């Protein structure tokens, strides 16, 4: 379920955003600075990424910088997905 290359992760994140924001998105565009998404939508994003990719985004990973662009979200998801799952049973 959570297998897939970084490209497919990126693609899925972009599709979700384009569906939600109803506009085309460039992967390195700063979504927050451009006003495309607000802090409210950011919360929805966190929950969506966790459910879609089976990761837990907690503590210091929960910061706006990790969600600014599609690229950053992709690398966050890939890093968490590849990390050894030991802590959360």
């Amino acid at each position, binding site marked *: 379920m959570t297998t897939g290359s970084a490209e497919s992760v990126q693609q899925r994140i972009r599709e979700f955003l384009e569906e939600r*924001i*109803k*506009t085309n998105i460039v992967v390195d565009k700063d979504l927050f600075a451009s*006003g*495309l*998404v*607000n*802090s*409210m*939508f*950011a*919360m929805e994003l*966190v*929950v969506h990424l966790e459910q879609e990719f089976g990761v837990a985004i907690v*503590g*210091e990973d*929960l*910061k*706006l910088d990790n*969600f600014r662009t599609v690229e950053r979200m992709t690398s966050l998801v890939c890093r968490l997905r590849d990390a050894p799952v030991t802590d959360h049973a």
Partner: protein
Amino acid sequence: MADTTMTVKCLVWDLDNTLWQGTLLEDGEVRLYPGVRELIQLLDARGILQSVASKNDHDHAWAKLEELGVAEYFVLPHIGWSPKSGSIRSIAEELRFAYGTMAFVDDQAAEQAEVAFHLPDVRCYSADEVAGLAELPEFNPKTVTQDARRRREMYQAGFRRQAAKSDFTGPDEEFIRSLDLEMRIEQATVEHLARVEELTLRTSQMNATGVHYSREALAGLLLDDHGHQVLVTSMSDRFGPHGAVGVVLVESGADVWHLKLLATSCRVVSFGAGSVILRWLTDQAARAGAHLVADFRRTDRNRMMEIAYRFSGFTGETCPCLASLPAGDVSGLQRLHLVPVPQAPPTTMRLIAPDLTAVPENRFSDVLP
């Protein structure tokens, strides 16, 4: 919570021979039973919502309610030919009320039995009991806050808002801007305390510490002069008022502002109310030259609040200023820290808020942005 579950939050009326004397489709002319208009107004003023479940022709019956001058008091009327249990179920679902807080009054024993069979928690009353309803304990809420008196109006505004939203196809932020939102933050007064207490009790998803403050404890903080600020936030938009939707408890020292509680109503989560309040506080603390430290305690329901803090820039990093704060008396308490920088005003709403950095004499004056 026993008292709150005891209280009826919505009374669903039958019409023929219950609300009015006669059967509309047979008699044509009907009139309200004596005292019913006064009862409707009384329950409305107590913050108890009222609805209709009637087997009638919808347009005909609704026109009659309007003619009788009581239509405005009813939310989500269900007038048609389907079973009343289904009507009550959908009213409760739309209001997000538990069945135990719903009541139903009907002159026909068979209708009461049908509802009781499918929804045993709904309280059923016969038409003879109407005259005495207002005296029953379940129709007497313990406190009637200012918001309770406007509850129906707020729900009606909510329905219009929802309808507008489902008609709107564009980015959410554009929709939010189209609402013409206004947020007012002010120092709480004694009159606010009942609602503030209620907010700390009812906002489990958006309560940063999960701690509930009693009215007495809050009243103590209002009087205490150690820099405690109890701030109450209310919102309105072009559809009407949202009422009091947020509470902030902050102790503002010279070097560090200690944010002990932030709780906002779930009703305004989609407007980003929590983030707007946090950004305003950040700006205020930045002007005062103080660090901001927020108490946060994870509960199984307040994840949204953690995200709001973290996305506003709060981190778990340590800072010497943390040592100056008294230890928390709640287990599992985290202290999130922020070195504040000035913030731009919100782009999605008008904000009217006091200047907490003003000299004490001006403490109660409002500063318009």
